[in-house]
Each structure stands twice: as C-alpha cells, then as structure tokens.
C-alpha cells in the first residue's frame, strides 16, 4: 500500500520536473554567457498558449510543439536584441518580457479560445523491455516523450558546456568577455545563440504544461513557474546536473502537494499552493552563502574598450 503511494509520488515528480528542466536548462545557457533573462515565465506562457491553440486547430501534437519552439525562438530573439544589442538593464527588460507574454497570451486566449477546455496531450510512451522492469520501469520508462527529452537534455547540455569548443566560448563570454573578445570570439553571436536557444527551451517548457502534463490552457497557467526556473539556476550553481537536482526537489514538492489535495487531507489548499514559493526563498537564502560565484559578466552588457 505505502509502496504504491511512494511509487505514484516519485512517478509524478519525474513527470512534473519536465517544465522546470527545459526552462532552467535554457536559462543556464543564457546566464553562462552573461545574460540574465527574467522573462522566462512570459515565454513559457506564450509557448503553452501557442502549442495548445495549434493542437486545437490541427490536432497534431508535434505541430503544437513546433509552434511553441518557434514562438520561443522569436521571444529569444527579442530578448537578445534588447539585452545584447540595446544593452538594456536586464532585470527590468525581463519583467517587461514577462508582462508582455502574460498579457499577450491572455489576450489571444480570450479572443481565439475563450473558455477553458481540455485536449488529448502526449500520452505515455512505454519503452520496450525496460518499461517492464518492476517499480524502476514503471517510474522512469512509462512517461511521455517530453519527459524523456527533458532528462536527456541534461547530459547533452553538460557535454556541450564542458566538452566542446562552443561550450568553452559560452563560458568564456560569461566569465571574461574582454579576453574572449581579444581571442576573436564573437560575443554578440554567442549571446544571441544562447538566449534564442533558451527561448526555444522555455517555449517547450510551456508546451509541456499545456499539451503533455495538464492538457489545458488558462490565463497565467504557469503561476510563476518560470521565475522558480530562474531560481533553480542559482540553486544549481550553473551546472546542469545540479539544476536537475533542484528541478526534482521542486517537482517532488509539487507532487506531494497534489497528493495531499487528492487525499483530502485537512490542510487548506492555499497553504499547499504556497509551498513551492516558500521553498524557493529558503533555497535562495541557503544557497547565497556558498562559495560558488555566478558568471562574472552576468547582467553586464559588453562594451568594447576603445
């Protein structure tokens, strides 16, 4: 009895980690190159809406996913233009992106869909053979394709960052832009690249909510999840593997919260809903005293000395 409950919670924690993973891995790339994008939540909302709307119109989940990636790329381009080319104050521009994404996704939802409705999202994809392994297989290999993608993204990103010339350039641009510049690394191009890829991943993060996990869209669907994703990057100290640990911590909190609600335990739902935000503040405070330093050029536009 207890075992099935625990399996259920772990299984849903793995599933719920998906949006956090896509969004915070994308944000990690941007921050490593020195760009702090606080508009993740707005991009996620746009991705979630566009994916959902495309699915209602075409019936194709993959087209929905593609649309979310495209919208994420467009937002990434916008963010990169404002932060890298126009060298805007990154904190405020991120809030601008958030307000814009929240407003535009609400507007489009009201005009194009109107009422809350559900769709058939990505269904679990049982991996042959290994999904049959007792407990282990059930937890890890009976998930939908976006979950697998999210978990594969972690080692892939780790490899790119640590083992490729591109990763070296990204880290150099974030740590010592002057040195990177003098070695001929194109700082603007690298930052555009990381921010646009980050935008695409935020788009997928949104889509994973609206066409894979919840299969619904409503105004402000993410409820600040994108901001928690940014916090996870601090938690993970800009390392994909640690970001994964953070994402799992939060998704477990979410899974337990949902389980408590379903069980009808006598705790007001508002308190359980509050939990992820309280945990975020505690985590940020606890992490702050560590020795790990953020990329030196984070939040600093690059000015070539003359």
């Amino acid at each position: 009895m207890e075992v099935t409950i625990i399996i259920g919670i772990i299984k849903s924690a793995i599933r719920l980690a998906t949006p956090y993973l896509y969004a915070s891995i994308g944000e990690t790339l941007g921050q490593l190159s020195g760009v702090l994008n606080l508009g993740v939540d707005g991009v996620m909302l746009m991705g979630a809406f566009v994916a959902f709307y495309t699915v209602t119109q075409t019936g194709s989940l993959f087209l929905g996913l593609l649309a979310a990636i495209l919208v994420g790329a467009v937002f990434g381009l916008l963010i990169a233009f404002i932060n890298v080319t126009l060298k805007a104050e990154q904190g405020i521009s991120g809030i601008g992106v958030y307000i814009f994404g929240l407003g535009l996704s609400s507007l489009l939802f009201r005009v194009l869909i109107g009422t809350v409705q559900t769709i058939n999202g990505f269904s679990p994809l049982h991996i042959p053979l290994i999904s049959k392994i007792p407990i282990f297989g059930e937890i890890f290999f009976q998930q939908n394709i976006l979950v697998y993608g999210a978990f594969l993204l972690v080692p892939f990103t780790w490899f790119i960052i640590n083992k490729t010339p591109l990763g070296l350039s990204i880290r150099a641009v974030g740590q010592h832009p002057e040195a990177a510049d003098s070695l001929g690394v194109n700082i603007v191009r690298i930052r555009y690249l990381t921010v646009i890829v980050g935008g695409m991943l935020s788009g997928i993060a949104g889509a994973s909510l609206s066409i894979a996990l919840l299969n619904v869209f409503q105004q402000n669907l993410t409820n600040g999840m994108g901001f928690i994703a940014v916090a996870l990057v601090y938690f993970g100290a800009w390392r994909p593997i640690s970001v994964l640990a953070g994402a799992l911590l939060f998704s477990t909190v979410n899974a337990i919260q949902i389980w408590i609600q379903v069980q009808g335990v006598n705790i007001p739902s508002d308190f359980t809903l509050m939990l992820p935000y309280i945990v975020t503040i505690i985590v940020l405070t606890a992490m702050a005293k560590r020795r790990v330093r953020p990329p030196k050029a984070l939040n600093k536009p690059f000015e070539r000395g003359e």
Partner: protein
Amino acid sequence: MNDRNFREILMELIPLAAFLLALTIGTMLIAMLGINPLIAYRSLIQGAFGSLNALADTVVKATPLLFVGLGICIAFRAGVLNIGGEGQLVLGALSATIFCLNFPDLPGWILIILSLSIGLLCGAFWAGIAGFLKAYFNVNEILSTIMLNYIAAYGMNYLLRGPIMDPLQIQLGSFIPQTARLSRMADLPRLIPTRLHFGTVIAIVFAILVYILLWRTTIGFRIRMVGQNIQASQASGVDVKKYMVLAFILSGALIGLGGAIEVIGVHHRIFTDGSVSGFTGSAGFNGIVAALFGQLHPIGTIPASFLLGALLTGANKMQRVVQIPSALIGALNGLIVLFVVGSEFIRRHQSKIMEKTAEVKDSCQIKQNKEKH
C-alpha cells in the same frame, strides 16, 4: 535654442515615443482582430475621459499605480528592483481590513489614521524581508519579491475563505470569498459626488514628499549614492546594506499605504476571485510600468500613472463596446517597459557624444588659455 538643450528635450521625449510605438503595435493587434481601431480607441477615450464619472474612475484607478510607482522609484534609486508591489498591496489592504473589522467602533478619523498606518507598516515589513535577504544574503530581490507576491496572495485567499469571511456569506451559504463591508466610519471622504476619494490627494502629497526625501535630504542623497556606485558609497563610509534595506522598507511602506487606501477609499472590503491578482488587478505590476514611464522620478510618475489609469479604465469600456479583451492593455504595458528600457541605449549613446564634445570644448578652452598666456 542651442543644440545641447534641443538634445536634452529630445531625450525627455523618449518615453513618449516608446508609448506611441507600443500604441501603434496595439493598433495593429486590434486591426488583426478584425475591429476598426478608430472605433476601439474612441470607446477607450470615452471610457477614460468621456464624463465626470469616467474621469473620476480614471483617477481612482491611477491612485494605487502612483503609490506603487513611487515605491518603485525609491527602490530603483537605491539600485534595487522591487517587483513585490502585488504582495505589498495585499499586505497593506489585508492588515487595514483586519484592523477595521476588529475595531469598528473607534471614532472615524482615528480608525482611518490607524488603519492606514497599519497598512503602511505591514507593506514595509513585507518588502523589508526582501531587502534584508538582498543586503545580508545577496538573494536576488526580483525573485524573492515575486515569491513573496504569491505567498501573500495565497495567504489572503486562505483568510478570505475562512477566518475573515463575511459572516453573512456563511449564513446564506453562498461562501463568496470576501469580508464583510467595513464600518462606514472608516470610509475615506469623497472629494466630489463620484468615486473619487481623498486617497488621491494623499498620493500626490507623498509624491512630493518622495521627491524632497530623495533630492533634498541626506538620507535621500545616500540612497541615490548607493544606487549609483556601491564601491564609492562604501569608500565614503555609507552603510550600503542599511540603505538598501531602508530603501526597500520605504518602498514597501508607500505600496502598503496604497493597498490600505484601496480598501477604505474604494472597495470598503477585500475580496478575491481565487487568482493571484484577484484583488490588486495587477496594480503591483502596472505601477512598475508607471514608474518607468515617469522616468523613475516621483513627480514624473504622477502623469504616467494618470495615463496608465486612463488606459485601464478605458479598456474596460472598450471590452464592453467592441469586445476587445482588456488583457490587451497588459500586453501593451509589457511593450512600454521593453521600449522604455530598450531606448536607454539612445540616451547613453547621446550622453557619450555630449561627453566627447564637452571634452573637445574643454581641450580647446585649455589651448586658448595657453595661447593667451
């Protein structure tokens, strides 16, 4: 008019250009929805300014934006970003409501002054948490204030669904999450026979006070110094951490006061629709737009809040008349922020040019002086 003055005036007009650019994109959006933008804008303008009542509603809508905007100005001048307007408004409103519910029999003016002071203190406390974490633990204040917004909103929803729910709602069995109407003794006086209330006057007085604080007092000078250069402030013996926390506390105090005024001036109760912006109507975010649009200057924030208040009030009418969801204004607000913050580039570029011309002039001056000698 010489070239330099002309440039400076052009710089002042940048936010207006950003606003017009956002409006242009809004017009395109409206046209894409298949609605004649002229008809849409006519209903918006009528809704915002068309009658005395409309104008009063615009000012009423602008008042919390001004309080939030002033709070943002103080924080920003100290180099910190307070995105916690939503939560601080809720704390101010909630504490004032609870106080009024518990002491309905106090004389009116005492009730008003005490409930406003309590709202102010609770807003200051809520922002102070973020300030403390920023100054002493280096916790990113944007993230912490946003988390505090959600905590405040869910805390308010909990209280409204239980402990402070209107007893009448429980009796009737309708369980609408709102409090009872507050004692009429606590109502802020109205100015003219419309919804316009005395809170607007308080807001404008505070705008002037914030200006005096920031530019005419030592505390204000140090707050701005911390915002401009932390190293230089430390070197000259300013306790940077203390002033960061202080800026947050002052910022939250103004916003909390704004929340309390929303309760005793406009709604006379607190309510929720279950969403996180159910009571505030996103004023905590719209106030940020007002502050940026007002060039982060307390006096500039007054007309900026008025304009945004007009947009929000007019959008409600537009939604009724031509069925354009008022969420449009949310999208436009985001664009205004992006354009204003993006156009800082032009300002920096211009000031560089000015510095260079000034240098050239200086060196010419020196040469001339040398030649004279």
